[in-house]
């Protein structure tokens, strides 16, 4: 059998073409061997996977036949192949402390080399023989992605000029030349100071700057709005003579939302021209400009009397039970009581009356008692129609005070049995941009009654939120240094605080309430996006979630507000987006793009 690449022909043949386009074979660099052997030949194919990204997996199978197609093998698995994309050979030095054109003693830096994955990295410094480049993790090889990186801080012993030549798998990386100088010309920036303010007030910006003696500095504040409230300006700060504190009062009349401040220093020539610009590294500050949101709706009048009521203070012991259906203020239903002497049940055929949500006054009459008479203890009892009138108590829709029609001197307090929503329906109401908090979501909720149950409007009641024990919360955004921000792991509603109760409003359905503002704070969101170790890459995300238990004010004497729904609150944060969901309801437009 002949060997060599000629067996494949001079061009890509049908045999060597993958009809699915997954790969191609270069016949000129493929071969068959062993030469002139009679044993099974070895076929070496140069396969290129088309458009393959690193990590794509292929299964390679083969079959063979002879030139006359006299025989043909079955398909056999040659093995599996995972492709890799070779990173280009690069080296980059980054000063992590400052961004001037100088590398200074005291600066932290990183050096990143890219090339083929899992290959040895060596370095030649100032022409010396290459040595293994061991990074801060103790590795002297590129990782699986073809990246090798190290970090460090230049000390006094590092002053000098450097030419560093890196090699990956012995292949030279384009060179790196730099100079480390001492701090005599050093410019240092203290942290930037900014503050949350109300719109229309002055935003106080300040930073402490140290510059070389004899230099003429000019300090600039670059103020940038988030993408939600785009804004960009650069203002020149001022300082008192011989003071290192530079400040500026920024008018906020046209600002609203979250802003980022970055200071920079310009060293000026004698003629006032700019000699050099120094961007203060890692000195970003954030501030928020806000306007007041309208107060939530106050207490509403009780919207409905639908329910089962008992008049419990009648002097006589035959207190009645009233099953009331309130239809737009017109009362209907049934009533009954148990005869005092004999225990005879007395049922009323009809119930009529009215209730005014405006005055909270009610009047209802039970008519058509049955039986019309009964004897007990030798006395004849003749039940009469029963009418009670009264007014529901302020701030309580389940308690009324009034009198009986047949005995105006006798009070007739009525108390309903506990009326609890069967649940609630959450509605996304938007983001609080108009109040200057673009990462705070607003939700409304509509209360539900049980299917096929009596229609009751919870308007006039109030609902509250609590932190139930289950289901447990979780927080993958938290990182080890977050406590410095007052940010402990958020696994419960208690981390964000429980607000005042919401007053349920009469919506002519079952009642609704809002707004439930749910947000972590715009500055904290910006700091999470900047610093959380869960968000190191542009594709990573983290989640904070915890349960919110909703309860309604009690109408019974126990005083314990009965819970009726548990909503999961979920924050999902990426480097550029925020999403908030309540009971799985979120912005229908998807995650909020919110970033700097």
């Amino acid at each position, binding site marked *: 059998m002949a060997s060599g690449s000629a067996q494949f022909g001079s061009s890509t043949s049908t045999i060597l073409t993958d009809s699915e386009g997954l790969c191609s074979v270069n016949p000129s660099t493929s071969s068959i061997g062993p030469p002139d052997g009679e044993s099974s030949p070895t076929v070496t194919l140069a396969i290129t996977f088309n458009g393959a990204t690193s990590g794509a997996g292929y299964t390679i199978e083969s079959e063979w036949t002879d030139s006359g197609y006299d025989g043909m093998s079955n398909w056999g698995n040659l093995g599996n192949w995972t492709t890799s994309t070779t990173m280009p050979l690069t080296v*980059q030095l980054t000063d*992590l402390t400052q961004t001037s054109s100088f590398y200074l003693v005291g600066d*932290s830096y990183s050096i990143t080399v890219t090339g083929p994955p899992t290959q040895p990295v060596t370095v030649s410094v100032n022409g010396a023989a290459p040595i293994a480049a061991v990074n801060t993790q103790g590795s002297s090889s590129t990782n699986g992605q073809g990246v090798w*990186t190290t970090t460090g801080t230049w000390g006094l012993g590092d002053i000098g000029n450097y030419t560093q030549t890196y090699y990956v798998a012995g292949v030279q990386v384009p060179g790196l030349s730099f100079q480390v100088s001492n701090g005599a010309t050093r410019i240092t920036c203290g*942290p*930037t*100071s900014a*503050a*949350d*303010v*109300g719109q229309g007030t002055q935003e*106080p910006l300040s930073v402490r700057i140290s510059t070389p003696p004899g230099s003429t500095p000019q300090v600039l504040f670059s103020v940038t709005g988030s993408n939600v409230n785009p804004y960009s300006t650069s203002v020149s700060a001022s300082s008192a003579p011989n003071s290192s504190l530079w400040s500026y009062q920024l008018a906020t009349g046209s600002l609203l939302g979250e802003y980022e401040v970055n200071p920079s220093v310009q060293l000026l020539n004698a003629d006032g021209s700019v000699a050099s610009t120094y961007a203060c590294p*890692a000195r*970003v*500050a954030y*501030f*928020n400009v*806000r306007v*007041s*949101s309208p*107060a*939530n709706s106050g207490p509403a009048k009780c919207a409905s009397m639908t329910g089962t009521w008992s008049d419990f203070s009648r002097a006589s012991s035959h207190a009645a039970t009233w099953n009331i259906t309130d239809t737009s203020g017109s009362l209907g239903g049934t009533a009954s009581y148990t005869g005092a002497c004999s225990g005879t049940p007395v049922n009323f055929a009809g119930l009529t009356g009215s209730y005014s949500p405006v005055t909270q006054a009610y009047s209802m009459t039970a008519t058509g008692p049955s039986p019309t008479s009964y004897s007990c203890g030798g006395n004849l009892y003749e039940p009469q129609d029963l009418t009670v009138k009264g007014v529901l108590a302020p701030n309580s829709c389940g308690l009324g005070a009034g009198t009986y029609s047949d005995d105006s001197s006798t009070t007739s307090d009525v108390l309903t049995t506990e009326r609890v929503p069967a649940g609630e329906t959450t509605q996304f109401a938007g983001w609080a941009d108009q109040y200057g*908090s673009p990462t*705070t979501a607003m939700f409304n909720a509509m209360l539900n009654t049980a299917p096929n149950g009596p229609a009751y409007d919870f308007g006039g009641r109030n609902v509250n939120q609590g*932190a*139930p*024990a289950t289901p*447990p*919360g*979780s927080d993958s955004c938290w990182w*080890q*240094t977050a*406590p*410095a*921000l*007052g*940010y*402990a*792991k*958020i696994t*419960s509603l*208690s*981390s*964000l*605080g429980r*607000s*005042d109760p919401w007053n349920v409003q009469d919506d002519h359905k079952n009642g609704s309430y809002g*707004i*439930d*503002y749910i*947000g*972590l*704070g715009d*500055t*904290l969101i910006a*700091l999470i996006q900047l*610093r959380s*170790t869960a968000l*190191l*890459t542009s594709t990573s995300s983290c989640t904070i979630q915890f349960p919110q238990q909703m309860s309604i004010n009690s109408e019974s004497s126990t005083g314990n507000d009965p819970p009726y729904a548990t909503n999961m609150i979920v924050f999902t944060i990426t480097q550029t987006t925020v999403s908030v969901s309540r009971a799985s309801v979120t912005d229908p437009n998807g995650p909020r793009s919110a970033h700097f």
Partner: protein
Amino acid sequence: MTKRYLPSALLLLILPTRCALAVDEITITGPKALVQLVSELSQRYGYLVTYEDAPVDTEREVTTMVYAPGRMDKFEISRPVTFHVPRGPATSDVSSGVAGPEAILPLSKELIQPMVDEYNASGNPSRFAVSFDGTYAHIYAVSHKVNGRMEDFQPILSTKVTMPPQTAPCYQTLNYLYAELRRMRNVNVAQSLIGANWLFRDQCTIVGADLTAGDVVAQVAHEFGTDHSQVAPGKELRIPWWLTYDAFTDTYYLSMHWVPNKSPQADVAPTSSPATSTDTPAPARPACTPPSKIRPDGKVVFDAGACNTP
């Protein structure tokens, strides 16, 4: 019997063996060990503890961590600390006769002081003291390292401030407080975790003169917890605050947290996880948050006598 809980990589809680002197151990290995302890004390035991930091020595007590190109952080160098939280005698189920978990002891200075001492002896930044006002324990820094030497530190919230008398949205009140602290102490203070509903929905009125920043924060917390007295006495929310210092931004961050009622001082056991918080009153001895009120001089005071505490 020893139980171990690992709520995060940072914490190790060892519940006690059943003996006369029950103690929980909480080991914290990350930065800001004391504020992390305060968080645990709040969530597990329902203790009302406030916390206030001092700035750290950026040259000696701060390290820089580079996570990825362009992603870095600066934070305090820390050493692990094991705190010991004392517990009361074991409760018992009268019906079954089975011994229950150890009770949560009443909050007091004597309860917290040994934990603060453990921190101060740990070699971590700053030195702290503790005080107790009958309801809240206050942990605050009293000295810190400056250029390598320990110096006394006046807590930021002890600064006298002048606040406008009008009623305003609470976020405005806090913004004004931050501005006052900048003016008086030349420090940067920003808002951290404070409930959005509190900030958007509540109005704050600061009363009194000769107030410290701490008085103002206490009044704001009182407002958040009582909703202008619409909340029934004994049901007002328990809201301690933290003022933490961040070396990366050289900024103090104010956060306020609602501490669900774990019935400290009642015969209940702590929860084993911060996630299992609840505001359900303790069955054995209903807990009571002393009603608070603001005196004309602006001090928030608590009526401990209103509670049936031991």
